[in-house]
């Protein structure tokens, strides 16, 4: 925000959305599917980035918000026969409510204690999913039938299992969340969040209730991550407990670190980069995680601010 030029900023973000739109028509089938997945998960990374990048709160429990959306949408479709839009909303509401409760409890701590508390709550959530296997399918998970994944609005029916519909749905969600994130970080509220990250004590002495602001950020972050989870369930038709495991709390952290914390486009770039590194290297060797690890170490050594963070630092100071 060093050079406040809203036109340039919005043009860039709309350009990225337009590019992703165009890619739908040129990408081969396999990559089209991969991109749909990446865009849905980039929303997860954006939700994580809001809290980690902007407020400076490192959570190790965001898998619970993602899976609250995943199960909130998946279970209402599977058991209650809800339609896609209602199930999506149910997923987001589940995530937001969970984030409110977790936020009220976890924000009593900070720093390392916050990491541990969020991780413990996420483990509880994971174990609850396994415990209530009768409804959740336990570690087998649930497959959402193709017939349940069709949106019909006034005679038009959209089949989310169709690759193009799926791609466009993921893109629509991604675009909406990206523009919300952009507006949020450029807003007065965004400025307060950054101030809390930089110096919470000083922010209090400027008249801000920092705990209330952090709580709003946790709920917004949880809701966005849940939107990603709900979309994932509905677009890819699988709801599984592995999405609630610790791995899915660490992944968004890696995506955001890679792409650049506290940048609006970093989460997309990080998710994209990590997915493709994994995808390409797993073609050569079963030890692909080793290569992913090396890539991460190199990045931390040579570009500790992540891809977009380094670009902003070296060349484009105006990047949000």
């Amino acid at each position: 925000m060093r050079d406040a030029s809203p036109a340039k900023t919005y043009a860039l973000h709309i350009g990225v959305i337009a590019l992703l739109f165009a890619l739908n028509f040129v990408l081969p089938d396999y990559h089209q599917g991969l991109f749909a997945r990446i865009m849905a998960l980039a929303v997860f990374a954006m939700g994580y980035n809001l809290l980690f990048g902007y407020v400076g709160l490192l959570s190790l429990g965001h898998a619970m918000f993602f899976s609250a959306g995943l199960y909130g949408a998946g279970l209402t479709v599977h058991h209650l026969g809800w339609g896609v839009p209602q199930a999506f909303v149910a997923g987001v509401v589940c995530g937001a409510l969970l984030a409110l409760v977790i936020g009220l409890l976890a924000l009593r701590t900070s720093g390392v204690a916050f990491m541990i508390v969020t991780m413990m709550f996420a483990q509880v959530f994971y174990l609850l999913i396994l415990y209530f296997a009768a409804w959740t399918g336990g570690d087998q998970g649930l497959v959402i039938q193709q017939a349940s994944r069709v949106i019909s609005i006034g005679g038009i029916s959209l089949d989310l299992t169709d690759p193009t519909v799926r791609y466009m749905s993921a893109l629509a969600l991604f675009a909406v969340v990206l523009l919300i994130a952009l507006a949020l970080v450029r807003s007065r509220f965004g400025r307060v969040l950054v101030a809390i990250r930089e110096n919470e004590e000083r922010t209090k002495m400027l008249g801000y209730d920092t705990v209330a602001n952090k709580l709003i950020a946790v709920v917004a972050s949880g809701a966005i991550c849940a939107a990603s989870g709900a979309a994932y369930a509905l677009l890819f038709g699988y709801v599984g407990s592995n999405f609630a495991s610790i791995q899915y709390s660490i992944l968004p952290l890696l995506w955001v670190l890679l792409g650049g914390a506290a940048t609006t486009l970093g989460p997309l770039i990080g998710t994209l980069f990590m997915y493709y590194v994994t995808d390409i290297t797993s073609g050569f060797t079963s030890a692909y995680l080793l290569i992913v690890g090396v890539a991460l170490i190199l990045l931390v050594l040579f570009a500790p601010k992540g891809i977009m963070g380094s670009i902003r630092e070296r060349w484009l100071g105006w990047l949000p």
Partner: protein
Amino acid sequence: MTPLLTTKGLSRQFGGLRAVDGVDFALMPGEIRAVIGPNGAGKTTFVSLLSGRIRPSSGAVVFDGVDITAMPAYQRVRLGVAYTFQITSVFANLTVFDNVALPVQRTLTDGRTKGQVRTGVMAALERTGLADRAGTLAAHLSYGHQRLLEVAMGLALKPRLLILDEPTQGLADSEIDNFITLVRGIARDATVLLIEHNMPVVMGLADRITVFNSGKILAEGTPGEIRANRQVQDAYLGATHG
């Protein structure tokens, strides 16, 4: 005239140490009050109790007729009690503009001011002479300018009481003169309470002086009275002026 701020039996203990010990204090609206005293006299603890950064062990703080003893710091700021830090504590990684925008947007949200964030920010920056540095990162400012930014942030809060904790510490003599002019300007719309070690600044600026020693008020009066006070000379002035 009723005082803007009063304290009654205000005390704060840290373990066995009574940093502030039963202080009765009153501040009149519009005055510039200096708080002086040797190191460890309890000055910073005292103003921290006023701003709400720390809670008293006992006693009460009343601001403009409202008992604010139990009120959290951020709510006191909204009432008009602003505090600038002794150790420069600007947001180093934010621009000068954003540093000042934070207090400005706070007063807009509270409905205490009207208009655009940008207008309010530029007004505060003009007043402190930082307007041409709005786009600079605070970390890249010189120390003197960081102190001014700290004051600009305090000003932008539209305070009724501005507490300055050793504002001239580390400033060059030329900067100090500007600073005195600035504080006189601020005192036209706000009450100023400053902790200060620089005696020429205190004598030139303060309407009244309160001298702290061992957590208690040792003396209070006009600069002339304080200068003539034998107890003060023994406890403080004598020690520093040989």
